[in-house]
């Protein structure tokens, strides 16, 4: 749905994007995770060409945006929704007026506009608030207006620029739940950037980890979790790094209650001590990560058994 290749962006001598490739599949929620200054905001703004990349191409829904002239680019942008960290609502307009704004730009007739605005406000849970002014709303409600506005043109893609970063944790969760619902119900493809791992954990199907203008790691979260030594796994699970010598780190996906650990102790002549671990709920299911020390003559056989049972076994040297 979104395909960016070889993106570079330079401001003078500062390189904000240093050869970024991004592939977002239709219907997925794709998170770009990184600290401020990593280039993720520039990347997002290159997707709808708010920033024109110094080199590289951006294709959204099969259309190469970098090749379009002003008029066609504006038309393409009407099919790409965007929400913003500080909401970017017009204070001169009511809530309904804000949602109607993109429809006016598209030349939708008044009656049709009013009907659509009603639908959109209901969709985001703000029915009846149309006549309010943005300053009368809470942060979470403002972002809901932002989302309604972004969806006005029936976009196939929604870009989210740190949309929950200005919100408190409970409101963040409710906005994320709304995004997830829109993703499932409308089949909306969402590309979001964030510096919060929590956002990635709660809603994302895929993730790209960015640092210093480059993507360090990317892919489906379920795959990355199964990749030994992946940055994502290390960042999600707060186990001390590097792993102490002789320790073994087990990652298990699926039902967290499968009793493999007790089985190993029963079947093999080993002593097992747990050094640390946790279970995280990701959008695709729960994932556990356990660091243990295995001692005893049958330790190698026990490890082989764990691998056979589908666990990812990482042995520290």
């Amino acid at each position, binding site marked *: 749905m979104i395909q960016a290749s070889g993106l570079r962006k330079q401001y003078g001598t500062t390189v904000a994007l240093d050869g970024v490739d991004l592939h977002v599949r239709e219907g997925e929620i794709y998170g770009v995770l990184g600290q401020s200054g990593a280039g993720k905001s520039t990347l997002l703004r290159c997707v709808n060409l*708010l920033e024109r990349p110094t080199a590289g191409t951006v294709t959204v829904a099969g259309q190469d945006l970098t090749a379009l002239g002003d008029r066609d680019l*504006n038309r393409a942008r009407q099919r*790409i929704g965007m929400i913003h960290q500080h909401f970017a609502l*017009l204070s001169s307009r009511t809530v309904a007026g804000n949602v109607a*704004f993109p429809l006016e*730009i598209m030349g939708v007739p008044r009656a049709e506009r009013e009907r659509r605005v009603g639908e959109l406000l209901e969709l985001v849970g703000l029915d009846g608030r149309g006549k309010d002014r943005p300053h009368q709303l809470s942060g979470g409600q403002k972002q809901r207006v932002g989302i309604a506005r972004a969806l006005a043109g029936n976009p196939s893609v929604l870009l989210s620029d740190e949309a929950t970063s200005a919100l408190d944790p409970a409101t963040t969760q409710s906005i994320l739940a709304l995004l997830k619902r829109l993703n499932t119900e409308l089949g909306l493809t969402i590309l979001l950037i964030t510096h919060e791992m929590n956002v990635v954990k709660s809603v994302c199907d895929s993730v790209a980890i960015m640092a210093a203008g480059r993507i360090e790691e990317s892919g489906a979260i379920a795959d990355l979790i199964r990749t030994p030594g992946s940055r994502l796994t290390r960042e999600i699970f707060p186990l001390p790094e590097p792993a102490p010598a002789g320790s073994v780190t087990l990652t298990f996906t699926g039902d967290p209650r499968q009793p493999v650990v007790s089985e190993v102790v029963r079947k093999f002549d080993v002593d097992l001590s747990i050094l640390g671990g946790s279970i995280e709920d990701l959008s695709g299911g729960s994932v556990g990560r356990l660091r243990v020390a295995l001692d005893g003559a049958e330790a190698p056989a026990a490890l082989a058994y764990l691998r056979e049972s589908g666990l990812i076994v990482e042995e520290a040297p």
Partner: protein
Amino acid sequence: MTWDEMLPLLWPATVETAQMVGWSTLFTVLLGLPLGVALVVFDRDGLRPLPAFKSGLGFVVNVGRSLPFIVLMIAIIPFTRLVVGTTIGTAAFVVPLTVGAVPFFARLVETALREVGTDVVQAAQAMGASRTAIVRKVLLPEALPGLVAGLTVTVVALIGYSAMAGTLGGGGLGDLAVRYGYQRFETLLMIVTVVLLLVIVQLLQSLGDWVARRLSHK
């Protein structure tokens, strides 16, 4: 001087001042608003960056701003004659008043438009709004309270300028104050004129503040 003697002088003078200020305000808005928009739109990081053109415009505006009004008024007499055919009378002074106020108002428009957050402008760009739509539907409505405040300041300045215009044959309250208050030592009329101007300015300022407040939804 009695009230009966003063009223026939005060009323026409007030009307002349109102005419000079009213017409020049109208033309100032018609010319200064687009000029102020141009200063923002063609700026280096504006919607349509044309830095060289914007520098040119800025230079012209600064020239207009740096000339004292009384000098400007005399300097553009040939231009005034070209436009209205005469250089005396209330109508003639609408020209220098407008020429003097346009750059002033344009700068205030520029400032008000710059107050509009870049985030809302970029949000509109992300929605595929054309530059014209952004000016008409985002910049101007969002800046409206600031524009009204700027207009109020401009009108008050125009009342001040119009008093100077009075001394060169434009009529109005300034002319009255000079001819009777200064040249004939009619102290009472001088005081009445001063009070009248004060009241007019206060009323206009309060009206402007009230409208700006009503329009602001921050």
